[in-house]
């Protein structure tokens, strides 16, 4: 059973792989915007969602995936789906 901290750390690890602004990773927090702050290519959001599904063993619908904008959104969504 993953706690909130585990989920957060895994989300950050997954998203960091696709960040183009590596400087922004130093100040990453739940409010960090994945596209605007980390400069992740929007096409890579699908890879991030697929990694979430594999890592947390869950399925994310297109509607839910479209709602992920920040690190916090991703953590909240994963937590909700895990429960």
């Amino acid at each position, binding site marked *: 059973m993953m706690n909130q901290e585990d989920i957060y750390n895994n989300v950050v690890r997954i998203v960091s792989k696709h960040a183009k602004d590596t400087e922004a990773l130093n100040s990453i927090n739940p409010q960090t915007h994945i596209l605007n702050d980390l400069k992740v*290519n*929007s*096409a890579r959001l*699908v890879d991030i*969602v*697929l990694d979430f*599904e594999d890592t947390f063993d869950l399925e994310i619908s297109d509607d839910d995936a479209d709602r992920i904008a920040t690190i916090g959104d991703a953590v909240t969504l994963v937590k909700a789906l895990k429960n």
Partner: protein
Amino acid sequence: MVGQLNYFWFGPLLVFILRFCLAYRSPDRRLVRRRLRDLIDTHPRRPLLICANHMTMIDSLLLTWLLFDLRTLMQRFSYFPWNVPELANFGKNFFLRGMCYIAKCVYLERQGSVASKRLVWEKISYLNRLGESLCVFPEGGRSRTGNLNRDAAMYGVGQLVQSNPRTLVLAVYLRGRAQKTYGFWPRWGDRIWVDWKQVDVTIAEGRKAQRDITMQIFDQLEVLERGYHAAWQ
């Protein structure tokens, strides 16, 4: 019908500009067109999805000129491919908007909302189901690396094929001999290389399958790119 009538002046104008004003040459184009026409004749009711590499702003025009002869487009206007240009680049003024209207375009806003992207998806999916040809660039934008950029892959192309497995998927490689990196258009008088392969995609359900289908298309594009380098570099 209006679009088809437009082609009587737009088609020859396009060919005149590309062949005589910009002096582009493509010695293999007749063979390439004949192969494609044979494929179309073998699968007459399947929609074409042209998936091409992307290096210049006029790739769509070049592809239409090099892949189809005038007769094919006159007889079957549905093979004149729809394009999905970026609104910020091709919707700037009345002239470009007029050109895009005639040349069958659906505008996309790359930085647009999720809703606007969904609307574009619905439109191209509808056109595909109608049997219309589509031309897309799975790299999303012009390659900044000088070669095919797998890291920029957009999985929407896989999603489209997944939604209509009858789609006839073509990987097309287009590049001027002097084209070292991306640009606005190929150099004046350049020899343009064009070659294509049909992609027999393996179709499954789910988001992962969309990525797999897209990667199968990239695999074929890479084969074509190796052919370009082997022949001309």
